[in-house]
């Protein structure tokens, strides 16, 4: 009777799972009791109450107002925004360089192909931290403020970073974003209207050039009409620093460039792989139909290559966000160096701080994969129906 029950596969399986669960639970219990005993012994507070306390440390670069008198929570928000800023900048730059290198890599020009192959291999086989400390060294080796490299007197590059002219009331970003989004929506609305009026559904011109055109043209028009009334805040050299303008510190520039070039090599490989994955027959068919080189690429190969590219590129973008944590090496105050570094050292609440940082990264990944899945679902509907 007893052996019969034990040898039942389902009972056995349930038993195994219970044992595994019990082991994990006991391990967690032991760790948590240890932790609480240690925390009591060291006299460290617990819980997330510390977030409301005064932070007391300065952050050299911030997107929202922040002073040492603000709370740890605000310092966390500053760090998060800095992470997102450098990630977005790097994603844009890495995509541009990566697509360029990838296209060069598949080009029919032997010399160009070899050279970009060499560049890609060099960029991707050197660890990111080496890229970073190298760029940082270069940034610090730039001339000082007095001899800063000037671009039309509107931007200055020195060992204090890049200082650029900016609209004085800070509304430039707000209006810029609004006009870009508004332009994109306008472009989409126009093209959707045009496509809806067509007799053959689904055979109209593609949607994305219209969105892109809207996002580019509308801001330019807005600038042309209102630009004269803007107050430009031009940086002026004042001894050891600049007065006015907005300053991108060398830490940000180094991290931005390092992340961009390192990740560009991955994007280049993705672009190359996707273009080469389009079957040879497609090229031959295009040639047989009398398509020349450029239309073959743009109308036939790229649209087919872009779908397998999307998930891989997304994971590269996620890696950029995760790798931006290397800011801690050069002292760029992003999420990990602000909350996981200074806040942790000041409060001693290691578990809470690290949990907070990890949870934030998890949330970013989850949101991205969710968007990715929605996109994939829509694509699969379009290609398989």
């Amino acid at each position: 009777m007893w052996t019969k029950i034990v040898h039942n596969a389902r009972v056995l399986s349930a038993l195994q799972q219970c044992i595994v669960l019990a082991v994990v639970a006991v391990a967690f219990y032991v760790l948590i009791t240890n932790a609480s005993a240690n925390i009591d012994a060291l006299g460290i507070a617990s819980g997330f109450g510390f977030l409301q306390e005064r932070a007391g440390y300065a952050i050299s670069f911030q997107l929202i107002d922040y002073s040492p008198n603000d709370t740890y929570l605000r310092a966390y928000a500053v760090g998060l925004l800095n992470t997102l800023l450098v990630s977005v900048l790097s994603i844009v730059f890495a995509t541009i360089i990566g697509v360029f290198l990838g296209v060069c890599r598949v080009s029919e020009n032997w010399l160009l192909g070899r050279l970009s192959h060499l560049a890609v291999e060099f960029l991707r086989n050197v660890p990111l931290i080496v890229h970073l400390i190298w760029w940082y060294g270069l940034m610090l080796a730039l001339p000082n403020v007095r001899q800063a490299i000037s671009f039309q007197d509107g931007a200055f590059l020195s060992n204090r970073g890049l200082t650029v002219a900016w609209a004085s009331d800070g509304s430039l970003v707000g209006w810029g974003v609004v006009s870009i989004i508004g332009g994109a929506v306008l472009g989409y609305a126009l093209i959707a209207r045009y496509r809806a009026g067509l007799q053959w559904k689904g055979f109209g011109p593609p949607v994305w050039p219209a969105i892109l055109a809207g996002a580019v043209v509308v801001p330019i028009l807005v600038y042309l009409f209102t630009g004269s009334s803007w107050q430009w805040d031009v940086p002026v050299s004042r001894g050891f620093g600049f007065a006015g303008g907005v300053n991108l510190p060398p830490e940000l520039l180094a991290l931005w460039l390092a992340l961009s070039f390192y990740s560009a090599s991955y994007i280049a490989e993705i672009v190359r792989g996707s273009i080469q994955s389009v079957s040879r027959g497609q090229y031959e068919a295009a040639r047989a139909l009398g398509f020349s080189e450029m239309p073959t690429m743009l109308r036939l190969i790229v649209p087919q290559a872009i779908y397998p590219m999307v998930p891989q590129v997304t994971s590269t973008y996620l890696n950029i966000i995760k790798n931006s944590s290397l800011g801690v090496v050069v002292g760029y105050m992003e999420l990990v160096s602000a909350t996981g570094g200074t806040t942790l050292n000041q409060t001693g609440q290691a578990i809470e701080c690290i949990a907070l940082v990890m949870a934030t990264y998890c949330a970013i990944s989850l949101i991205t994969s969710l968007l990715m899945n929605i996109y994939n679902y829509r694509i699969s509907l379009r290609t398989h129906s």
Partner: protein
Amino acid sequence: MTVSATQSHSGVQVPPHHPLGHQVTRWIKTQLFPTPFQSCLSLITLVLLVWFTPLALDWLLFSATFVGDSKADCIGGGACWLPVTQRIELFVYGFYPDTEIWRVNIAFGLAAAILPLLYIKQIDRRWVLGYLIVLPFLMWWLLKGGVGLPEVSSTKFAGILVTVFLGVIGMLFALPMGVLLALGRRSNKPVIKLLSVLYIELVRSVPVITLLFMASLMIQLLFPEGMTIDIFLRVLIVLIMFTAAYMAETIRGGLQGMPSGQYEAAKALGFSYWKTMGLIILPQVLRNTIPPLLTQFIGLFKETTLVVVVGVLDVVGIAMSTTAAPEWLGLEHEVYLFLALFFFTICFTLSRYARHLEKQMEKSRS
């Protein structure tokens, strides 16, 4: 030979044989100057190459200083490689005692021996597997000492020694853990599956640096008072845990690629789950996933450089301390270039090797 002879006799046209010079000009014409646009591109790149290569070579080699004692000896106008050549022992062996350096050399040799072992087909796979299992313990024993060898404190570990040690040992311990996680993720037992998925996804969605911070700042809180673990070991554990999660996904890909006939055949023969996996599925999966696993090793090798953030002096740490040393101030380009070339050489060779193995496999399959 005979086929082409008969064909040419029966009147089928044989491609005419071109002299070499003609072939070269034709190649240049088709590869470099097929269209006006391409010709422009080629010309621009050629001009840049011709202008840049001599300058670079001159700086790197011809005007560079390789021998000397201090920065004052660098008068050639080219690169000053003295911080590297003068400190090469520090770069390779760290602070390892001079009399024991032979142990490090043997450990390097043992690690490098993996590649030929993977390459030579005649060796029984079981021997290779056995070697891979013994290797991390052997390396640990050689470097750390203990039974029969004088003990070396891990505070003396630095430089390339740390990088290679963390990379190889991390990889070899992560492999079994990755296999278990991959099997767990494909298990039909909900609890095991859920735990594996949670672990893999959690580790994969956070940056390595936060895990390293956890190792350096948080783990002490989780263990009973008085029990301290060497920072080196803690960092190693984190790298293993981290790599295992990524590896699990690679191996899962391999498991999904196995035809279901293999499972059915095993079931028909009455094999148990572990016998099916251990004797039939995993040997095939592991063999097929050697190229992606090597790529993963390259990734891990590059990730080990992050340990410098928590104060372990790997080769990057030594380089950073060199550029900060007053006697070598201002020579960061040479030091970082050396660092970049070091990683490039190893990672590029390994990636070529992985590519080669992959091609061989494709060939043997078709």
